Structures are given as structure tokens and as C-alpha cells.
């Protein structure tokens, strides 16, 4: 892929220049204060591009994936889930996790920056110890991906102010958002991010996210914004707790409020219950 310029070599140079990470004590004064709880701004829904309306984000999809997206929107209109895979409570994965539907916390340590997102208990480890991307032996893929980061002091004041991150090895199924904007089936997505605090508002954090994917005709960049709550209250969002969707085989059904199975679409066939008959008949014998 032409877009794939690794930041690994830059990371190594930076790590050497700054002394070996393993030997570093954690000098907090070198890092920005991103403590507290970060939330998406009020009024921003779960659309990938926060500057555009949900479902009309103008994703630069290839013709093939635009057709997949259109079919997905039609399915959603009919009551289906389309290409949004998260209704079964699998994690959003990257880059969608950075929609930060529920709050996140960022912990900065010398070798790793942790991003904990309350939704699905998603945890990102962004390695800033100068490592290279590992060779995938087939076990690396995850929804959240593998992230390597590099701290940058852009204004030369002796304190880092930007975190550059590159994420690879994400697995499918994923979509950019709940409208179902698809990522390519080859799962070769690369996500590049630039985190930085707003210059005028220290309680605003920006994440410039560029996604490189074969379902796109060009890299797609959006800027996510997060507002800080300095005295946070944390809660637990347990997706499975009130999930009304049930996937049985290739079909999705719903749980009714009175605890019965019901169709999600008009005219949907019920699930095949032949194993009950077989099992019960066998039990009678």
C-alpha cells in the first residue's frame, strides 16, 4: 500500500536521542497533563466525522464499498443491522473506538500510553518505547489493533505536546460508525493519529485521525474533539447487560420486553428449532 510509511524508524531515532526508555525514570514534567476524564462534546452523535450529519459523511469509499454502504443503509431502514457489527457487543475496535461514545481516560507512562475507554472496556496500549511493529505470526490481530506512538515537542520548550500514533493489525468485522461505513474485508487498515491539546483551551483535546484502507479512494482524515471533566465520576457500561439483539447462526433476532424471541424484520422466519425436536425425541427413546 502506497500510503504505508511506517513511523517505526522515526520512533527508534527518537528513542535513542532521548536516552533508552528502559532506563528512564518517569519525568512527569516532560509530558502534557491529559489527566481526568475525556468526553465527546455534547451534541456530537456517534458519526465518524463529527462535522457532518450521521449517514451523510461523504466517506471517500471506492465504488464497490459505496455500494456495500448503500445496501447497509437500506438494511438498517428495514430494521436490520447492515454492516454495523457491534450489535452483538463485540468491541468497536479502531478507529471507531475514538468516537468515545462513553468517556475515556489517558494514562501517560514513559514506555506506554494507555487509553481506557469506558465503552466495551476497550483498552489501547500505545507503545512509546521505541519498538518496531512486530511481525504478525497470525496472533496479533485484535479489534483495537497494535499501536506504536512517538512523543513530539513541537514548540521546543522541553515538554512534549503531541503524541503521534500509528495503529495496525486490526481485525474485522469493523465499521467506522453505527451508520455502517465499512472498512475493507482485507483488514489491512492503518490508522495514524495526532493527539494534541487545544492551544487556547487546555480542557479540550484533539485527535486528528487519518485512516488508510483499501475500501477508501484516499486517506480519510477527521478531527475528533474531547472535553475534559476534571472531577470525573466513572460508571460501567456493560453492553451485554441490556442487549436486545441475539444472533443465531447467520440471522439476528430480538428479545421482547416480556422475554420472548421476536423478529427484527417484518416477515422474518423464526430460527430453526430442529435440534430441540431431535434432542427431545432422543430423550424420549
Amino acid at each position, binding site marked *: 500500500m502506497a500510503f504505508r510509511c511506517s513511523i517505526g524508524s522515526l520512533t527508534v531515532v527518537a528513542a535513542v536521542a532521548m536516552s533508552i526508555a528502559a532506563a528512564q*525514570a*518517569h519525568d*512527569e*514534567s516532560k509530558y502534557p497533563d491529559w489527566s481526568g476524564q475525556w468526553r465527546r462534546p455534547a451534541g456530537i452523535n456517534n458519526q465518524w466525522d463529527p462535522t457532518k450529519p450521521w449517514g451523510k459523511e461523504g466517506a471517500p469509499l471506492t465504488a464497490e464499498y459505496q455500494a456495500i454502504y448503500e445496501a447497509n443503509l437500506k438494511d438498517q431502514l428495514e430494521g436490520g443491522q447492515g454492516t454495523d457489527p457491534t450489535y*452483538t*457487543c*463485540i*468491541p468497536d475496535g479502531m478507529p471507531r473506538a475514538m468516537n468515545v461514545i462513553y468517556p475515556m481516560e489517558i*494514562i501517560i*507512562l514513559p514506555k506506554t500510553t*494507555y487509553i*481506557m475507554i*469506558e465503552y*466495551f*472496556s*476497550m*483498552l489501547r*496500549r500505545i507503545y512509546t518505547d521505541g519498538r518496531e511493529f512486530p511481525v504478525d505470526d497470525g*496472533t496479533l490481530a*485484535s*479489534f*483495537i489493533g497494535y499501536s506504536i506512538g512517538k512523543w513530539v515537542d513541537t514548540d521546543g520548550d522541553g515538554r512534549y505536546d503531541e503524541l503521534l500514533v500509528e495503529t495496525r493489525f486490526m481485525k474485522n468485522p469493523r465499521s467506522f460508525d453505527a451508520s455502517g461505513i465499512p472498512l475493507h474485508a482485507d483488514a489491512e487498515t492503518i490508522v495514524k493519529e495526532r493527539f494534541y491539546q487545544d492551544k487556547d483551551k487546555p480542557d479540550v483535546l484533539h485527535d486528528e485521525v487519518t485512516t488508510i484502507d483499501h475500501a477508501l479512494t484516499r486517506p480519510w482524515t477527521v478531527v475528533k474533539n474531547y472535553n475534559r471533566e476534571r472531577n470525573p*465520576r*466513572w*460508571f*460501567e457500561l*456493560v453492553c*451485554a*447487560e441490556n442487549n436486545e439483539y*441475539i444472533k*443465531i*447462526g*447467520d440471522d439476528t433476532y430480538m*428479545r*421482547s420486553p*416480556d*422475554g*420472548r*424471541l*421476536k*423478529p427484527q424484520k417484518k*416477515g*422474518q*422466519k*423464526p*430460527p*430453526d*428449532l*430442529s*435440534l*430441540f425436536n431431535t*434432542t*427431545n425425541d432422543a*430423550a424420549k427413546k
Partner: protein
Amino acid sequence: MLHRISIAATALATALLMTAPGARAHDDSKYPDWSGQWRRVEGGPPRYDHSKPYGRGQQPPLTEEYRLIHEASLADQASGGQGLYRTSARCIPMGMPWQMYALFPIEFVFTANTTFVLSEIMTSQPRRIYTDGRAWPEDQDPLFTGYSIGRWIDHDGDGKYDVLEIETRNMRVPRIYDQSGIPFHEDGEAIIKERIYLDKADPNILHNEMTTIDHALTRPWTVTRNYRREKKTIWTENNCVEGNDNIAVGKEDYLLSPDGFLMPVKKGQKPPDLRYFDQAQK
């Protein structure tokens, strides 16, 4: 509850002695090295007290009322059901103290004001153990992880902390200790006290003395967890939902067959009620 001796006052005093928490920089040299990935030492079937057999063999000091609830859970499991493990089979967190069993690996992350315990299994939310001297909040909703206040102790006076004491309250119910369904009291008033420290002889072994105080117990129940540090750290993503073949509909549990069909978990179990489907479609 007589057992409830808060550590908040001690923690507050400690924090005041150590300067205001908000102003503290994180001095790595004061903390023990608990970096890396920790896994349970003991093998065998997951059980709360690893020194005893699974199920009744755990000999939890339950009141008679809660012993009968545990027996009912075991009986349901013996007939193919989930018993009180049912919610966990649906990927709802087991919370504290089970998440410190480390069936899947855990990581400790220290900052000046908080110690985090991060779990690979995504149904265990991050634990935030506040070490900033705060008091218990009065308006916090119950969480499966509970609300934890900790205190670092320099036990041997060498200028470096070596023990983390934690008290956890305000945990959500229903909750169980292990997969056999050893129950907590439904009043949600349990308190868990932990004492975590490195083994003196082996710095790659961590111990966690856990004492649970709960109205379902006749006395505080103490077990010791042991964790081993992995030399090579590989984190995977365990989200519980993928590959979960347990299907709950209403009060009934079913299984998903390998080829994607709904199937019973118990002999003679009735299929789900399909009254909401168009009769002509059945």
C-alpha cells in the same frame, strides 16, 4: 457491620503527611516494580480458593440461607444449566473479587494518585484504586469493580513502598465468587480488603491476601491469590462475546450448536416461544 473498619481515615492522614495529592509528582523510585503481565500461579479448574477443590469443596463460610442458594446453583449446573453463573455466561462482569483471580492476565499501572489494575478479559473493567487520600464518596453508583481506596505502605522502612492495602466497597449485585456460583448477599454491602505484595524470595511472584466481609458469610473469608510475572508479555483481546455459545432468552438458557442452530442445554428443555413470529412463517 462489626468488621467494617475503614482505612479511609488512615489513608487521609497518610496523604496529608505525604503532601497534597494533587501536587504530587510520580516518583517511580518509591514504588515497587510490579510491571509486566501477571498470571495466576495455580492451574486447574477456576475456583475462588485455589487451595481447595471446586464447588462444595471450597467450603465457603456461608450462612445456611446462602449455602442453600449455592446448593441450588450446583444442582442446576449438574443438570446442564448455568446456575448462578448464568449472568457471567452472558458476558456480564463477575466483578470483584473474582476479577483478581487473574484467569486471564492482569497488569498494574501506578500513578501518583491512582493504581490501576487492567485485565485482559474485557468483561473485567479497569480497577481504579485511589491512593490520593480521598474519603468514600456518598453518591457513587455501585459498580461490578466496586470503589477502591488504597494505601501504599513502606513496611520495612527502606524508603520504598512494598505493600498496597486496598479496601473495596459499593459493588453491584448479583455477584458470585466463582463459576460454581458461591453467592454474595443480595444487600450489596460486601467489603473486600486486600494486601498485595511481592514475594520476598521471588520478585516475579506477587501475593494478594483477600478478605471478604459479607452478610452471606458467617465470618470474614480470607484467601491468598498468587500471580506469576510473565517473562514475555503478549497481550491479546478477550472480549467474551466472540465464540460465546450461550444464548439467553428470557429466563431460559440455550446453546448455539457449532453449525449455528439453537439447541437445549438440558434434557427435555422446551424450545423458545415463537408467538411473535408470523404464524405462516413457522
